[in-house]
């Protein structure tokens, strides 16, 4: 982030105007109140204040490149106080020197100047503090703006993903192939056909009830993907192997609605659809550091040419996670030679 007083036109103009005003006030005080001659007053006001205006610009770097969020308030105060002390000493020293060489009849003015140094120091410290505060305000408002923008963008992405997901959740390919399997089973195994229709109905009902920001019990999510896998198992038979490992205390954890189905879908799409050999999908669910850790791992045929459209479902899961938990880095992806793993870290607060 560049210094707004340099990079932004309206900020630079205001900054210059304020300094013109300060120079005017300074001049008025010297001339009318302290009864100094006009020329001396002008030189004094211009030299000291223009120097300070320059100093004020460089204070930006002291604020911007010191990470105050990582330090204790006292440290922040001491840091700025120290910086101010050094900056103000330099300012007074250089100002004094410049006046001494530029002012005709400096000898007469010297006494007044010497006596006023303490007041210059105090007013300088005040102005310095105001500048630091303005910089902090600016940085915070910019950060806030950025965060709001980022959130809006994420929301938009999630909405777009939502449309995609709606299309996928009643994924016509899945649905019609499943119905075809049911149709086939009605001839050979009517009981299995009925069972599959029940699973398909449960699956669709859960999908249709889905609400964007709701959390649900892990156990309902697991039931849902078991229905889903049960249906796919009828289609693919031995080509699909599924196993799940879960610690019993995890089942009452809360997770975002419909967060697992896209991952299982991916595993089936890139694993089972593309392989002649059996593909193994493993879910591993455990509790770790206040987080529910869900790993979904599938094997795939390394020789299969990659399918297009890879990553949209995953991107959407990741977007939803960062929107719901206001944190990045909750979704990890590991791709091995012949396996693929997605790990979700779902924060569990005590309530």
């Amino acid at each position, binding site marked *: 982030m560049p210094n707004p007083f340099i990079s932004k036109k309206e900020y630079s103009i205001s900054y210059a105007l304020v300094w013109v005003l300060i120079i005017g006030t300074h001049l008025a005080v010297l001339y009318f109140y302290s009864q100094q001659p006009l020329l001396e007053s002008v030189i004094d006001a211009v030299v000291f204040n223009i120097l300070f205006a320059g100093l004020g610009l460089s204070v930006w770097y002291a604020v911007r490149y010191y990470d105050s969020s990582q330090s204790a308030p006292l440290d922040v105060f001491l840091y700025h106080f120290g910086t101010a002390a050094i900056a103000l000493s330099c300012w007074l020293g250089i100002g004094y020197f410049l006046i001494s060489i530029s002012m005709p009849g400096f000898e007469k003015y010297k006494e007044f100047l010497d006596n006023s140094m303490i007041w210059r120091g105090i007013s300088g410290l005040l102005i310095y503090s105001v500048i630091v505060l303005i910089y902090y305000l600016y940085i915070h408002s910019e950060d806030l703006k950025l965060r709001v923008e980022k959130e809006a963008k994420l929301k938009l992405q999630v909405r777009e993903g939502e449309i995609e997901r709606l299309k996928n959740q009643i994924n016509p390919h899945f649905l019609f192939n499943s119905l075809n399997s049911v149709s086939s089973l009605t001839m050979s195994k009517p009981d299995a056909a009925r069972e599959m229709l029940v699973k398909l109905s449960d699956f669709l009902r859960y999908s249709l009830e889905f609400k964007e920001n709701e959390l649900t019990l892990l156990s309902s999510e697991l039931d849902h993907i078991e229905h889903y896998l049960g249906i796919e198992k009828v289609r693919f038979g031995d080509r699909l192997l599924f196993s799940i490992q879960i610690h019993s205390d995890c089942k009452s954890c809360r997770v975002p609605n419909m967060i697992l189905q896209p991952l299982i879908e991916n595993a089936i799409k890139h694993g089972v659809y593309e392989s002649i050999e059996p593909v193994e999908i493993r879910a591993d669910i455990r509790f770790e550091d206040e987080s529910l850790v869900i790993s979904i791992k599938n094997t795939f045929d390394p020789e299969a*040419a990659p399918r297009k459209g890879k990553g949209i479902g995953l991107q959407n899961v990741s977007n939803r996670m960062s929107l719901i938990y206001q944190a990045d880095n909750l979704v990890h992806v590991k791709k091995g030679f012949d396996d693929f793993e997605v790990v979700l870290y779902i924060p569990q607060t005590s309530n």
Partner: protein
Amino acid sequence: MTLKLFYTSLKHPISMNYSVIIIDDEQPARDIIRSYLSRHVDFELIAECSNGFEGLKLIHEHKPDLIFLDIQMPKITGFEMLELLDHFPAIIFSTAFDEYAIKAFDMSAVDYLLKPYSQIRFDQAVKRALSKLTEQSIDREQMSKLVETKYLDSEKLNRIVVKTGFKIKVIPIDQIEYFEADDDYVIVYTPEGRFLKQQTMKYLVANLDSKEFIRVHRSFIVSINQIVQIEPYEKDSKVLMLKNGKKIKVSKSGLKSLKEALGL
């Protein structure tokens, strides 16, 4: 069923049995075709399999009259399998994908069954196959030419399937350096060697991603990533230098589309 067939053949001594192969990766889907087909005495199921590789082998071995073909299958799709056939049976597609319909008909498939379908709908398809097969007018030569059709706009080729001897090789599109025309064939050049495929340049131009592949000459389509530099060659003409050291002639119109693609 054998008894029934026997009985039927007694009843219709001159009726001919057409051989059928089912290619579908899902067992229940094959079951239903088999079951529907059992009512048709003119057809005899001789084999079934669950992917395009096996399908190719079976078709080569048995030269069936009719195949039922799914499209989305592991390894190679139903369409890719058709591209590699030497023998062309009558084809009935059986798939859940509606989006392939246009393409299937362009390929002069006999019919196109959308899963799930009824016995009545199935019977219609088989009836159409029967009339096509009995017409004797089934021109296999012509069929092989019809295999080339335009993919849907949203779907660019992301791999090329070739046959080397009896083996099938799936080449991801990003491994291809360039294509060279050779009569009715194209030669596909990859770091692993060159492969022959029965396909036209026109088809490739229509279906390759035009941001990745440029037709620089009547006989050449080059992957943009492979180009190292464009050099002058004789007067008024240029050659391309590729990463593998090969040089490729560029025609005038080729140079124009190349410049457009590179934003020059």
